[in-house]
């Protein structure tokens, strides 16, 4: 028996030693295709990093990220999760909590390209400018940028991995069948602050500018089991409360009713946390009602589609067996092209220099761009200015996170100029500064539209960033 014990112990030890040796000696991968992210790289040693603990912490992350056979082990882990997250006999249920991050900024098609153009200086900019002035620019640039996107699709963790200074939004993601939804929870004291922030923005813009507030529900409100959209999860209650707290001078847009009325249509993605362009269209009709505009009928738009779109909710749940149902049944994104001719550029700051052309709706995103939602104004950029051939001379400014992106193309039928501002990109850390009142005046803004979804009206960081736009 002694021999057997020794033998078994040796097998075990050999296993540890061999795997350990491989882990230290093998060539490390730098990118995980499974997770669509850069893997941690070996941290640089410094005494201060050693003593404050970050060196060891990063070393541990790096070691786990580059562990041999990582992808295969992750596949096994997904199977293991079938046990830990039992989904019910024939059904497919999952509820997990998450700490939402990435509040520093969103995702854009051009992130890397912008850096390149800034580095290369005026030459690139001039070329880009040429591209826009040429007729049919949108189409040509979209083809260009899509190829560029191929190389930039690998996200740069620098811009969006949640850092320590960021508040995390805690919520729940549920999967019911082939539909994944994120469920917001109301914190009414925070919603008060959001309403106050919108009031402050309205006041700062002055009496010549009409401010609209549009808070849209997300899919959880319509398709989740009852307990996920009632009580403190009732998005209707959150929105009603939020609107009731705003100053009378702010016009509130009842997108909720419009969406509710069409809840049996394809107004939200099942694998992504956004609404579809159709959902955004119904919100747009509600906006038109508030603003006294005549909405363009749906039939008047030219449309196109992207198939096989697996969005953020799929990515987030992809470590769980329940996500297989989403993968089997991906989303189709249908876009509606602007009815007017548009020219758009995005800029890093209010100097509006080095603009990079974007399309209001990209029709030829390459397959390598997995996030098809980026087809709307190319995703999130600090400032995006859209000029249209609507000859009424009216200008609107839109403050939004990515929920606004699918909404903005519809506005191109009503304004000569649309100035889109992403509040996350200004007035904190190393970001450029932006004074909303001054910038609005310089752009000749007539209407201000603040569009958000319920996670944002419950998010103190986002509200802070809105407030900081008011000097």
């Amino acid at each position, binding site marked *: 028996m002694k021999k057997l014990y020794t033998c078994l112990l040796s097998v075990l030890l050999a296993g540890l030693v061999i795997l350990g040796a491989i882990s230290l000696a093998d060539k490390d991968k730098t990118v995980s295709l499974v997770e*669509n992210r*850069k893997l941690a790289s070996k941290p640089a040693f410094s005494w201060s990093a*050693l003593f404050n603990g970050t060196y060891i912490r990063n070393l541990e992350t790096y070691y786990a990220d580059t562990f041999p056979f990582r992808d295969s082990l992750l596949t096994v882990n997904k199977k293991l999760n079938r046990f830990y997250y039992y989904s019910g006999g024939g059904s497919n249920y999952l509820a997990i909590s998450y700490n*939402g991050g990435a509040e520093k900024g969103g995702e854009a098609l051009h992130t890397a390209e912008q850096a390149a153009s800034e580095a290369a200086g005026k030459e690139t900019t001039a070329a880009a400018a040429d591209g826009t002035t040429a007729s049919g620019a949108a189409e040509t640039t979209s083809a260009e940028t899509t190829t560029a996107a191929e190389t930039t699709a690998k996200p740069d963790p620098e811009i969006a991995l949640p850092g320590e200074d960021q508040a995390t939004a805690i919520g729940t993601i549920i999967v019911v069948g082939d539909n994944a939804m994120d*469920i917001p*929870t109301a914190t009414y004291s925070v919603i008060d602050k959001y309403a106050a922030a919108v009031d402050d923005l309205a006041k700062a813009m002055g009496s010549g500018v009409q401010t609209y507030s549009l808070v849209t529900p997300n899919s959880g409100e319509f398709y989740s089991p009852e307990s996920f959209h009632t009580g403190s999860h009732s998005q209707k209650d959150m929105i009603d409360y939020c609107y009731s707290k705003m100053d009378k001078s702010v016009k509130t847009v009842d997108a909720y009713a419009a969406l509710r009325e069409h809840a049996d249509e394809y107004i939200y993605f099942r694998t992504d946390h956004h609404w579809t362009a159709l959902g955004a269209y119904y919100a747009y009709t509600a906006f038109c009602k508030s603003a006294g505009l005549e909405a363009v009928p749906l039939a008047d738009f030219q449309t196109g589609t992207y198939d096989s779109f697996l969005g953020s909710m799929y990515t987030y749940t992809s470590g769980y067996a329940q996500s297989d149902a989403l993968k089997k049944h991906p989303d189709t994104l249908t876009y509606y092209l602007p009815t007017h001719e548009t020219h758009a550029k995005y800029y890093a700051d209010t100097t509006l220099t080095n603009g990079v052309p974007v399309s209001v709706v990209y029709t030829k995103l390459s397959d390598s761009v997995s996030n098809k939602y980026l087809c709307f104004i190319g995703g999130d950029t600090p400032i995006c200015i859209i000029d249209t051939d609507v000859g009424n001379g009216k200008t609107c400014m839109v403050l939004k996170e990515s*929920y606004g992106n699918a909404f903005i193309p519809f506005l191109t039928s009503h304004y000569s100029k649309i100035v889109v501002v992403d509040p*996350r990109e200004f007035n904190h850390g190393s970001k450029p500064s932006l004074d909303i009142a001054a910038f609005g005046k310089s752009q000749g803004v007539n209407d201000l539209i603040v569009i958000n979804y319920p996670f944002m009206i419950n998010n103190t960081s986002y509200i802070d960033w809105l407030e900081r736009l008011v000097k």
Partner: protein
Amino acid sequence: MVFSSLTFLYCFLPVCILLYFAGRTVNYKNWVLVVASVIFYAWGEPVYVILLVMSAWLNYAFGRMIGGCRGNGDKKWMTIAVIVNLGLLAIFKYTGFLVTNLNHIAGLSLPVPKIELPIGISFYTFQALSYVIDVYRGEVGVQKSYRNFLLYVALFPQLIAGPIVRYSEIEPQLARRKSTPEGMYYGAMRFCVGLGKKVLIANYTGKIANQLLDGELGSLSTVGAWLGILMFTFEIYFDFSGYSDMAIGLGRLFGFHYSENFNLPYISKSITEFWRRWHISLSSFFRDYVYIPLGGNRKHQFLNLFIVWGLTGLWHGASWNFVLWGLYFFVLLWIEKHTKRQLRRVPRFARHLLTMFFVVIGWALFYCTSLSRLGQTLGVMFGFRGSGFAGGQIGITLLNSIPLLVVCILGSSAVPRIVGLALAAWSSGESATQGRRVAYALLVFAFDAAILFFATVSLIGSSYNPFLYFRF
């Protein structure tokens, strides 16, 4: 460093084992372990490792002083040692708590210093303290070698989460010990079991407990609150006892024999029994070094118990809820003491349920470090607040966690032990053949290797971090 990490399992441990068995003398082996232990500690506490080494040196010196002046100042040195040890503990663990309370009581606004708690300080301070007191009492000899003393205090298997090892247990093994293949095999298997408890059970139950109990309590339902606390009940048991299993197992690998620290606490049929089965090394520390010196049950027992349980609570953390938790058990034990005869008439099954009910409520006190959240959580548990009986999000979470819940209930019951003992008897009795013994060894090996594999999978899985520009 923690046992349940890839760096420990695949780098630190194999290197440590190879080096340890590369030499033959105890002297060499002790050097390997001491260096390994200091690295192990420094990995997680690159600064506080100095505190550990210094605290060990001070207590080593106190031991020598007490031994050097028997009957002539040894009491003085013992007193100094106790003050220094408790002082260090107070500074590094309780300063923030003390200042906050002082501010509160006296209406001051002193700045509350933010001192990070050195990992394991409560454990190694108690070990060192027990040594100094035992030397003073003449129960153990004085350790002449600082290296060996450091090895006693800082031996990495038990350094950061116990058990609180007594010097008297380990003294002979510091100088002479043997790693037999049987012992090492047992140790390795025991380690794997502990690893499984921690990684494959406690980590998951913990996630669900946090998911349910850390959110907005207004949206928590009664069922949700109970599931959350129940999950925490299992988390703390599997986490802590898993850690003790790993410590005991690793100890055996290197030839050390540690006493058991947990003995199926959740099968208890009274609170008294629970505390004989839960964190045994801590309760016996308080019994031997606080309760009995205070007079035990000979004089003012009520007061003695009150002090012991207040301190037991406080030892677990610098917050009032821990004190409350300790005193809660004081009250329960006192009631139990005086209703022994009546309780005996209650059926065993009901006594078990009643005991577990109070233990689970105890974990609610333990979990909620803020008293207002504690009040709210208890409110939800007993149906006064929250989102109703089974509202909120509980349905899917409950469904998702059914298999885990079954594993937890079975795993903390006597079933695994009964099965294990039956198998062991089958393979080792007089009638047992060699074939049975081999089959048994292989079966255990397969089971534990599977645990190691799945624990690795799970640890990799916990680093799964799909990239998202999520919120927007």
